[in-house]
């Protein structure tokens, strides 16, 4: 079965700067693929090439098994786009904006479709409001309605929740997740928010200096950071525990007399807890901070910056 989107050796030079350097990836049906990277890593340039707004220097893009360059209109009819950086016309109402896009996409029964989507995204009562008078969260949900008018099989989402408060972002994300489950759509999702990416993406492409340096599930990428943090809190001075850690040259920090923060490999944590508990010390609390996708992001960022 053809992937919905296939990118092969895509590159973009902006003057003497190589913004995207020969990236290749695929998006299968029903998958959410995250495109992660620091600012300037090439995420937005990639999205713009995927929309045909920026011309690639080399490489190829194909949607639904057909070359994008020669099937631009049929491809764009089956995909859609949303970005926190691109809004709709500010002076016109929500309904007027959506009517324009419904006609652009030749949406059949567009009045009913717009009503249904506005209700789903809980902005049905906003339809006659002027777009620029809406809050950021409402605008994002109206933009989501716009991005679903043509019943796309694939949506390119460029940091859709970037300007939202955490609770509104969470709600928006839930709506996207539910819609994806109901309609089995695919999404290419860029974000700086690692929790968001871990939550909704099946796969993550890690972009650095225009190249894909990692491609895996969020869970597997997080596992690549082997260091974890173990926080042990005691009733009194943990003298025996300190002796144990020093005897085995395990790195630790004592920010509080009764608390030890131990940096170690994730797989060593059970053994350390077991060994220390044998010393007879009473632990009040054990906290394990496992590596997350954010830790991986920070590690990669440090590595690519050349900083320790």
């Amino acid at each position: 079965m053809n992937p919905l989107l296939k990118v092969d050796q895509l590159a973009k030079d902006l003057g003497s700067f190589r913004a995207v350097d020969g990236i290749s990836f695929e998006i299968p049906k029903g998958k959410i693929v995250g495109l992660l990277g620091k600012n300037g890593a090439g995420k937005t340039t990639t999205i713009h090439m995927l929309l045909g707004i920026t011309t690639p220097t080399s490489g190829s893009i194909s949607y639904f098994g057909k070359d994008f360059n020669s099937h631009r209109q049929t491809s764009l009819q089956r995909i859609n786009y949303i970005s926190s950086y691109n809004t709709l016309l500010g002076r016109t109402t929500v309904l007027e904006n959506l009517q324009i896009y419904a006609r652009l996409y030749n949406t059949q029964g567009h009045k009913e479709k717009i009503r249904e989507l506005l209700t789903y995204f809980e902005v049905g009562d906003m339809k006659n409001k002027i777009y620029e008078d809406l809050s950021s969260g409402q605008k994002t949900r109206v933009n989501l309605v716009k991005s679903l008018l043509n019943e796309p099989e694939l949506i390119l989402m460029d940091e859709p929740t970037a300007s939202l408060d955490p609770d509104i972002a969470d709600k928006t994300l839930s709506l996207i997740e539910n819609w994806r489950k109901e309609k089995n759509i695919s999404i290419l999702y860029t974000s700086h928010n690692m929790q968001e990416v871990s939550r909704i993406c099946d796969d993550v492409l890690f972009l650095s200096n225009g190249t894909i340096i990692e491609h895996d599930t969020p869970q597997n990428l997080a596992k690549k950071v082997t260091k974890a943090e173990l926080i042990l809190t005691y009733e009194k001075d943990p003298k025996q525990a300190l002796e144990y850690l020093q005897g085995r040259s395990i790195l630790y920090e004592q920010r509080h007399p009764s608390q030890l923060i131990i940096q170690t490999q994730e797989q060593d944590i059970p053994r350390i807890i077991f060994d220390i508990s044998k010393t007879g010390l009473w632990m009040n609390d054990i906290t394990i901070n496992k590596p997350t996708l954010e830790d991986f992001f920070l590690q990669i960022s440090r590595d690519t910056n050349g900083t320790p």
Partner: protein
Amino acid sequence: MALHRIKAILLQEYFMTYRSLETIVDVFVYPSMNIAVFGFISKYLLGSTNQGIFLSLIVAMLFWQVFSTTQYTVNVATLWNMWAHNLTNLFASPLTLLEYFTAHAISALIKALLVFGIGSLIAYFQFGYSVIQLPFSFLLIMILNLYVAGIAIGLVLIGFIFAYGIRIQAITWAFISIIQPLASVFYPLSILPEPFQSIARAIPLTYMFEALRQTIQDGFVSPSTLQLLVTGSMSTSFYFFLSLLIFKHLIDSSRQTGQFAKNDL
């Protein structure tokens, strides 16, 4: 080209026009006021001593609105989309540039004819001149040439904005005030200093407005006026095709450099 997408952009134009007081003022109020004020000043200066020049000035101002309204519509419609950061959304849909600008060309024609109609009524009721005194074919050729010239200039200017960014948007307003004195809109070409006459001869509008003055003066289209119309029309056609090439080059360059997308961020 898909008709439904052209209709969608026309619908956008309609919404943008009636929801934007600036556009209503720029497209309908200012041109009408220009014609009225220009007429009053001309009447004050010339009185009844030189009716021919008086009429030439009013009618030239009337026809100038066809050119300026067309150019304004083609440019400002796109600027509104850039100001709203909506351009990427539009071109992420199956909409093509040809469909987009065809819709704006249709919208520009409607607006230019409306402005011309309103201006004609002012000229008739306030100054007693009816444009239908001009031969119909002459009227048609004048409007068509000024409309096509407005599209050509509009395309080139918006092409430059696509290629070099919204920071040069002032050219859409500045260019028209540069071309107006050079194109001898309100006075004969011979009034201009010699070096500027050479520049004026390279502008199609110059021939059209020379032809307009001659027709008003003669009361009919003389062979020399016809010659001016033919030269003007050929020149307009040449510049129109040249503008398409320049526009295509600027759009391609804008997509190559990534500026097309940057304009919308």
